[in-house]
């Protein structure tokens, strides 16, 4: 007998494999052309066939995503602390940030190309600006929602603003920061792939675009699958990190363990 726990663990795999089988069956039954919707088996075949190119371009994407993400975490984290700790900074900057965040990031890419040319830099910057916002918002929220009673306890002990920030503000903001990382990493990925598609000659986005312009549809799909897998892996890494760093915020629940 399979225990419920193992079943919970296996479920995502079962669903994924099920979807692929469904896709395969759909293609066989409808007899759809492979340059419209290739069968998954063909996609995997293509993946193996183009393994070196795919590896090269994925690594490039991984690099730009990670670089943009790290910048986003550092910059977003710092700005989040300033915004959350000071009402004045909050009032001044928040509307600007919201405005900035509502610009579709793909619209920035042409500007970045003018400034930095085609290649790695626009991808990193796009990943950075797109992953930046959720981190700022989360960190600021963590700081701004300190219980007033707790603040009173510290203030009447004679704690300085800095002490309140380091003793309760920052530790309290940690779960908020780590919760935002999994959103941010997926967004960073979206950012770098978009930028590579529009303005690069390297990276998985570029690979898909060039495959599509030569009608190599199976390779386009191979790229999509790789993008999805990388996204899931990065998300899982972020979740693992979150668990490790802020276990106390989960109060012993065993989800995702």
């Amino acid at each position, binding site marked *: 007998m399979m225990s419920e726990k193992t079943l919970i663990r296996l479920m995502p795999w079962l669903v994924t494999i099920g979807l692929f089988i469904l896709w395969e069956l759909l293609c066989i039954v409808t007899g759809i052309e492979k340059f419209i919707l290739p069968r998954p088996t063909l996609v995997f075949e293509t993946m193996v066939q183009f393994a070196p190119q795919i590896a090269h371009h994925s690594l490039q994407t991984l690099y730009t995503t990670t670089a943009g993400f790290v910048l986003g975490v550092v910059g977003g984290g710092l700005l989040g602390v300033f915004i959350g700790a000071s009402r004045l900074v909050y009032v001044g900057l928040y509307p600007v940030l919201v405005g900035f965040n509502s610009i579709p990031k793909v619209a920035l890419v042409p500007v970045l190309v003018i400034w930095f040319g085609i290649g790695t830099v626009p991808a990193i910057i796009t990943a950075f600006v797109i992953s930046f916002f959720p981190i700022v918002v989360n960190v600021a929220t963590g700081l701004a929602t300190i*219980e007033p009673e707790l603040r009173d306890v510290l203030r009447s002990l004679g704690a300085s603003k800095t002490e309140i920030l380091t003793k309760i503000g920052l530790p309290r903001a940690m779960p908020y920061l780590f919760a935002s990382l999994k959103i941010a990493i997926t967004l960073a990925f979206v950012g770098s792939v978009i930028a590579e598609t529009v303005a690069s000659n390297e990276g998985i986005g570029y690979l898909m675009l060039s495959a599509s312009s030569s009608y190599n549809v199976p390779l386009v799909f191979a790229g999509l699958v790789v993008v999805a897998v990388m996204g899931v892996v990065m998300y899982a890494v972020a979740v693992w990190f979150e668990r490790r760093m802020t276990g106390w915020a989960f*109060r012993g629940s065993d989800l995702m363990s």
Partner: protein
Amino acid sequence: MQGPAFVKIDGVSLVYRQAEEETLAVEDLNIDIQEGEFVAVVGPSGCGKSTLMKLVTGLLDTTAGRITIGGKPVKGPVQGVGMAFQNSTLLPWRSTLDNVMLPLEIVEPHKRRLRKEKKAYIEQAMALLKTVGLADFADKFPWQLSGGMQQRANVCRSIIHNPRLLMLDEPFGALDAFTREELWGVMQALWMEKKFTSILITHDLREATFLADRVFVMSKRPGKIILSKEIDVPRPRTLDTTFEPHFGEIVHELREHIHSVRES
């Protein structure tokens, strides 16, 4: 009354201003508290008890009147005051022991000495935890403790640095009756040992009578003191004490005043 008051609240009023609206929360409060005295303030919900507490600790500025502590006027947050609230406000990322030791990281002279004399301070904190029956839970995190245990830890945190003034704002309000009465005993024992000047805010008349030397009854908003009652019940008081006729009479008298307040 003996000597000058340690805490002197002299004709104090407070108005909350929010946008256009003005709320007179407390009006013309006059309270003198001797050093080492345990006083309780009771009154209907919303009458300004918590406001009074914020005024005394300097977290709020008075609109009129003045407050002095140890002869010095209160301006800005008074340093080194111990505080405990209804919700325990323990830090979830710290163990019980580390939570209790938090004030030592902030209040001088402990802050300065903490690193060098860490061992002695830990011993001191452990001894305190032991007196409230939490020695075995020092390494546990707040969410691993029951509500009553969290409140014990919370009380320990408020007195670890031997505060000149202890402020308790309905610290046992969220607990069940049994746990609450148990903690009265714990609180009384701690106070009898260390004798810090304490102000307890509560809406439980038996709690006030059990713990305090003097009970002040506040009217509904705007809060004024309408009765100051000396509690002449010998210490240590026990749960049996609460069933004695004299204890009952005092509680009854307080209750009648509260009632007259609510009906007026």
